[in-house]
C-alpha cells in the first residue's frame, strides 16, 4: 500500500467518519431494541469501528485497533453484567439463544464485542509483525 494521505489528511474540513458513527448508532439501537440479531451485531461493529476511526483521525489515539479491541471488551462486560443481574444462571446456555428476549439481545451484544476483539487483536498483531 502506498502511503497516500487519507481524505481527512488532505482536507482539513472533511471527515468520512461522522456519517458512519451516526449510521452505526442507529443500526445498533434498532438491532438491540427491536431484537434483530444480525442488525444488532453489524450495527455495533460499525459503531465501534467508526469510533476507533474517528478517534484515530482526530489524533486522540495513535492506532485504531486497540480502541476497537477496547470497545469490544466494554460491550462484553456490559452484556455479561446484565446477564448475571437479570437472567437466571440456569438459562445462560447457547441453546437458549432465540428464546429469552433479553438473553438473545445480550448474546448479540456480546457477539459484536467478540468480533471487535478479534478484529482489533488480529490487526494489532499483523501491524506489529509487519513493522
Amino acid at each position: 500500500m502506498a502511503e497516500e494521505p487519507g481524505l481527512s489528511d488532505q482536507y482539513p474540513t472533511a471527515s468520512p467518519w461522522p456519517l458512519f458513527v451516526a449510521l452505526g448508532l442507529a443500526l445498533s439501537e434498532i438491532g438491540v431494541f427491536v431484537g434483530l440479531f444480525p442488525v444488532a451485531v453489524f450495527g455495533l461493529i460499525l459503531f465501534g469501528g467508526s469510533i476507533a476511526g474517528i478517534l484515530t483521525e482526530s489524533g486522540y489515539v495513535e492506532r485504531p485497533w486497540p480502541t476497537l479491541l477496547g470497545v469490544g471488551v466494554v460491550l462484553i462486560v456490559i452484556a455479561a453484567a446484565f446477564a448475571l443481574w437479570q437472567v437466571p444462571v440456569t438459562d445462560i446456555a447457547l441453546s437458549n439463544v432465540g428464546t429469552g428476549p433479553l438473553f438473545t439481545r445480550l448474546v448479540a451484544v456480546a457477539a459484536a464485542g467478540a468480533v471487535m476483539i478479534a478484529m482489533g487483536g488480529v490487526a494489532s498483531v499483523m501491524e506489529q509483525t509487519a513493522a
Partner: protein
Amino acid sequence: MVAGDIVLTGLMAVLLVGVAALLTRVENWRSYTPLAGGGAVTGDETAVINREKPAGIIRWLTTVDHKDIGLLYGVYAVIAFAVGGIMAMLIRLQLVTPAGAILGNNAYNSILTSHGITMLFLFGTPIIAAFANYFIPLLIGADDMAFPRINAIAFWILPPAALLIWAGFFLAPVTENMIEPARTAWTMYTPLSVEQQNPGVDLMLLGLHLSGIGATMGAINFIATIFTERDGEVNWANLDIFSWTILTQSALILFAFPLLGSAIVMLLLDRNLSTTFFAVEGGGPLLWQHLFWFFGHPEVYILVLPPMGLVSLILPKFSGRKLFGFKFVVYSTLAIGVLSFGVWAHHMFSTGMDPRLRASFMAVSLAIAIPSAVKTFNWITTMWNGRLRLTTPMLFCIGFVSNFIIGGVTGVFLASIPVDMILHDTYYVVGHFHYIVMGAIGFAAFAGIYYWFPVFTGRMYQRTLGKAHFWFSMVGTNITFFAMLALGYLGMPRRYATYQFDGAIAPLTQVATFHQLATVGALILFIGQLFFVWNIVQSWLEGPKVEDGDPWNLEDDGMLDREFQWFEEQLEADSPEKDPSLLADGGQEEQDDS
C-alpha cells in the same frame, strides 16, 4: 423467521463490506502515522494539502465545516416542514365535513401523530440548529465549532431518525400492516402507548431517541463553542442576543433531552421486555406524564427561545435603533430558562393531582408570563419612534410579535386552573400552541432565512414573492388558528377524526363552520409556502449576485454585525484576481475532478 434472519445477515454483511470498501477508497487508515509500515514520509504529501474540500456529493457527506453543516440542517428542516405541512393539509381537508372527508380513523390518528412529531423534532429543532451552526461561529468570531466532528455526527443522526419516525408509513404496505405508523399522539401517553402492539411504535420511539441524542450532542457543542471559542473582542458584555438565546437553549436541552431519552428507553423496555415502569403495579401510568412533561414544557422553550433571539437580533436592524433594554432581554431569557423547569404540571391539571401542588404550578406558570411580556414590550419599544423599513424579514418579525402576543395571552388563560378545566383537550389548546409554533417560531425562521439569504447564497431573494409569502402566511395563520380558538370555546375536543357527536357536547353547525374556516385559512397558508419554495429555489439558482457586503445598509446605523463583516471579506476574497487559496467556501475548483 430463520429465513428472515439469513436475509438480514446477508444484507448487513453487504452493507458492512460496502462501508469498509468506501472508507478504504476515501480514507487510508495506514497513513496516520508515517512511521508504521514502511514510512514513505517523503514527497507526495505536499502536493495535495492546499484545497479545502473534496468535490461533489462526497463534500456534503464528509464535511465538518460549520457552514456546510448549517446548510444541511436547513435543507433537512425545510424538507421536514414540507412533509409535516402536507400532513397538516390532510388533517384540515379531513375535517371540512363532520363525517370526515378523506381519511379513516386509523389513518387520521397516524397522520396527526406524525405531523406533531415531525414539526417539533424534525423541523423545529433542526431549523434552529441550522441558523446556530452557520451563524454562531461567525457572530462570535470563532473559526468553527468547538468539536466539528461531533457537530457532523449530530446532524447525521437525524436522517435515520426521520426514517424511523416515518417508518410505519413505508412499511405498512410491504408488511401487510404488520408494522403500521404509530398512533400514540406526540405525547405518547401510557397505557395506550404500551398496549399498542404495533412495532411501528418501537421504530418511532427509537427515531425520537436518536434525534434526542443528536440534539444533546449539538447542545454540548454550542455551550463549549460559546464559552471557549469567542474572539478576543467578544466578551459576555457584548455577546450578541442570538448567542445568548442559543446558550440558554442548549442548557435546557442538556437537562431536558436526556430525560426524554431515558423515559423513552423505559417505555421501550415496558413494551418489549415486560418491565413495569409505567404499569399500574409498577410506577403507574401517571409517571409517564410527569417524565414526559418535565421534558415537554422545557421543550417548548427550547423551540421558542432561539426564535426570540432571532427577532431580537433582526428587528432592531430595520427599526434603525438598538434593541431596547438589551440587558433585560438577556435576563428574561435566563429567567425563562430557569422557570421553564417548574411549570410542567400545568399540562396535567385535570389528572386529579393534589390541589395544593396544582396551585403552586399555576403560580409559577403565571409568573413565567412576566419575562415573556418583558421581551414583548422591549420589541415594541424598539420599534417605537423608530425608522421602520418594512422589508420581508422585518414583516416576519412584526408578524412574530403579533402572533406571539395572541399565543402568549391564550397561554396565560390556560395556566389558570379553572379556565383550563374547561378548555383542556379542546381546540383552544391547539389554537394556542399553533399561534406559537407556526405564528411565532415559523415566522422567526422565515425572518432569519430572508435576512441572511445574501450571506449563505451570495444572492438576493425576490422581494415581491417574499412579501406575498408574508401576507399569505400572516392571514392564513390568523384565520386557521383563530378559528381553532373559537372551536375550543364551542367545546370541540381535540384529536378527533370526525365530529358527528351529540349536539349537547357542542353546537354542531357552528363547529362545522369554524372547521371549514380553519381549512380555508390552512389553504391560504399553504399557497403562501408555495411562494416561499419558489422564491428560495429560483433565487438561489439565478437571483442577482450580491456585490455589497452590507445589503441591508446597516453600516449607516452602526449596526453591521460580525457575520456581515465576514461576508464582506468573503466577497473581496472571492473576486477572481485575488489569491485562490482564500477561496474558503467554494469547494474544489471545477476542472480537476477526482
